């Protein structure tokens, strides 16, 4: 077995969180190594570099790893009453390479769910502790938007102006004004003007199909160039098999298969797991040993539990006039948090956002609604360029029965297990979801839609995979502490969406990356603690 020279910090996973941690620590002078099981995305193969981008999005770029089957992907099965249609990518940049760019800060109340509403869990810190890291991250990423939203605390100006909202956005503005509701331009991780060497967005739309322009702020374009410049040793096609624990109970590093399938050891004073809401519990549960027979960092039994995915849907309004639904960033219109906070007048706790999108593209639309045969074109023509959609996202409360487990019946290319997810929406989520969809109909009708269709609540749109190794102050009810450090292993950190105790009701990327920066600073500030008894020392 070959062993790499020791690093100060070993980061497993190069996605939204891993990239931010690598960049932050390397910028401070730490020797950082990152193991990524995927590869750099070949930007020439991004779907939107080709006229048949929609078809490529169903094959090579399919968001579901079972369809895409890149060499780095592992099998995912979905069980439960409300199975999850899992969307994620294993590549440099992680699942951000296929994200839409919606970039929200959580609200202060999102950090105190148990205290305020008696459900879910409190985060072990409050909004104000994370706010400085939101700001640092927004500057790194080049977020587009406007400060001043009355649905959140005061904050500094954002780096870039909001995306143009186009006709779909204007129709929604008119609706919100008519209803007298709160609304605001949706914040986007998109450079709407030239920013730090990246070009201004030119409104090609359909951001999840890749951004050949490079304006969508994916981690491979935001954090990684600087991280590499600062010396991070990024190893791609490095499939980690287990976290290795020493006799003293500390993490020695990771054992992985390299691109040739040769097993190697990578050691460091500190190990960080940042493999996402499925990948992180997968790795921890695989890392069994006599002292951790049920998986690493799992004395609470909560590794893999409390999987949250958001209560999600779309509602689509049909308009008499053309809506220019092809024109502009997919999510860059306006959103409302009118129903975000818990309201005792409603029959559920917590809340949701409604975020304006544009129109469905031809293949997506045809697959959704156009029957085959003689009625095909009539159905298609009625709707193409006459529809706009609202993305609906509500809080999915943590439930231990919603979980990730190892799936030894379906193995990856290295003979390691896949994962199986179990998910069911609880009663609160169902009531929230029904109300969310009802209000979406109300908005679209106020915008002038002559009819509205929606996608219901299931199967779950599985973009946001959260909570499976959650933070907390109590080792009995959480996996990691307030700084993302595993309760059971003093030099092991878990820093990605899996560490979120609750999901909030917004897209999680901004929070995941802010958390990662905060975790990196904690590692740096306490670096002396990790030096003791190790050959590797953080300088």
């Amino acid at each position: 077995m070959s062993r790499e020279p020791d690093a100060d910090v070993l980061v497993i996973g190069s996605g939204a969180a891993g990239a931010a941690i690598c960049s932050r620590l390397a910028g401070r002078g730490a020797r950082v190594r990152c193991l990524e099981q995927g590869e750099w995305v070949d930007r020439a193969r991004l779907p939107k570099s080709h006229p048949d981008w929609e078809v490529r999005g169903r094959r090579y770029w399919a968001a579901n790893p079972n369809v895409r089957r890149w060499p780095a992907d592992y099998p995912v099965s979905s069980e439960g009453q409300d199975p999850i249609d899992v969307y994620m990518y294993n590549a440099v940049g992680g699942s951000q390479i296929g994200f839409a760019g919606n970039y929200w800060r959580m609200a202060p109340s999102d950090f105190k769910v148990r205290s305020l509403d008696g459900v879910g869990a409190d985060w072990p810190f409050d909004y104000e502790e994370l706010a400085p890291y939101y700001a640092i991250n927004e500057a790194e990423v080049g977020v587009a938007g406007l400060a001043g939203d009355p649905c959140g605390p005061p904050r500094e100006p954002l780096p870039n102006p909001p995306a143009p909202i186009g006709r779909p956005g204007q129709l929604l503005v008119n609706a919100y004004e008519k209803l007298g509701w709160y609304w605001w331009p949706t914040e986007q991780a998109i450079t709407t003007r030239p920013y730090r060497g990246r070009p201004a967005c030119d409104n090609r739309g359909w951001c999840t199909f890749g951004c050949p322009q490079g304006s969508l702020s994916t981690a491979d374009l935001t954090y990684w160039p600087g991280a590499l410049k600062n010396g991070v040793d990024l190893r791609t096609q490095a499939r980690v098999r287990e976290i290795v624990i020493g006799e003293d109970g500390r993490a020695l590093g990771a054992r992985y298969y390299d691109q040739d399938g040769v097993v190697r050891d990578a050691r460091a004073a500190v190990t960080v797991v940042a493999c996402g809401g499925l990948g992180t519990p997968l790795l921890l549960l695989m890392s069994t040993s006599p002292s951790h027979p049920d998986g690493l960092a799992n004395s609470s039994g909560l590794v893999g539990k409390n999987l949250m995915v958001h209560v999600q849907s779309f509602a689509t309004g049909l308009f008499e006039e053309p809506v220019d639904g092809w024109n502009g960033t997919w999510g860059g219109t306006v959103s409302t948090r009118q129903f975000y906070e818990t309201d005792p007048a409603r029959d559920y706790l917590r809340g949701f956002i409604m975020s304006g999108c544009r129109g469905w593209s031809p293949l997506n639309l045809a697959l959704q609604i156009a029957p085959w045969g003689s009625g095909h074109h009539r159905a298609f023509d009625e709707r193409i360029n006459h529809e706009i959609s609202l993305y609906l996202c509500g809080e999915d409360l943590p439930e231990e029965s919603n979980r990730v487990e190892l799936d030894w019946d379906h193995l990856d290319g290295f003979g390691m297990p896949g994962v199986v997810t179990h998910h069911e929406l609880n009663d609160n989520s169902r009531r929230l979801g029904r109300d969310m969809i009802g209000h979406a109909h109300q908005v679209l009708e106020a915008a002038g839609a002559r009819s509205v269709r929606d996608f219901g609540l299931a199967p779950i749109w599985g973009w946001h995979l959260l909570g499976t190794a959650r933070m907390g102050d109590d080792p009995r009810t959480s996996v990691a502490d307030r700084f993302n450090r595993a309760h059971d292993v003093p030099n092991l950190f878990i820093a990605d969406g899996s560490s979120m105790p609750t999901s909030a009701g917004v897209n999680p990327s901004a929070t995941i990356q802010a958390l990662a920066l905060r975790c990196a600073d904690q590692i740096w500030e306490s670096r002396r603690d990790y030096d003791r008894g190790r050959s590797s020392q953080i300088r």
Partner: protein
Amino acid sequence: MAYDRKQGQHQVAQSSRPDYRLEVGRAEVPLGSPRDFVVLDPARAATLKAWTSTLIPAAGRRPDAGSVGAAEYIDATVHLVPSIRPVLIHAIDEVERLARTTTRRGFSECSAEEREAILRQFLSGGDRDAFSMVSDFTYEAYYGHPKVLAAIEAKSGWRGNATMTGSPIAPFDTSQLERVRELPPRYRIFEGGPEVKR
């Protein structure tokens, strides 16, 4: 992608259930350039071509699916994914058998109405997966084809090439926020949390 789910009928593609989608993800078949059949014999190719044209017939400037190479696209896909060949060939043979049983002609020789009726008969017979596969591939081939996208733009104004070229849009007019800016703060306070102020 995530947005292509059939409304009300969506099945999650997952490793624990057989599904043609699990087979074709790595089969890349670029659209828009002519290609010949490589797997299907001429008789089956003709049946499949007529099948695709029945699924999406011509309308106005829009061609039928058969004439933009949908059958050849399906053939190219099964060329790359041999595991789904038997399903396709069996389905084609069954459609042809139904045509000869009901009309005494080959499927491709039937009228549009007859072909549609035969396909509905096939669909009611049980092999919905095979039908879905041919249908999905046909939609892909059709709505990815430059001729079709150009015809859609001419009729609806939907600019199919905007994803390649981009397009200018007027910047957001911040004066529209005048009313909302004056609304009271709308986030909850908790002890030790942020002050509600603007």
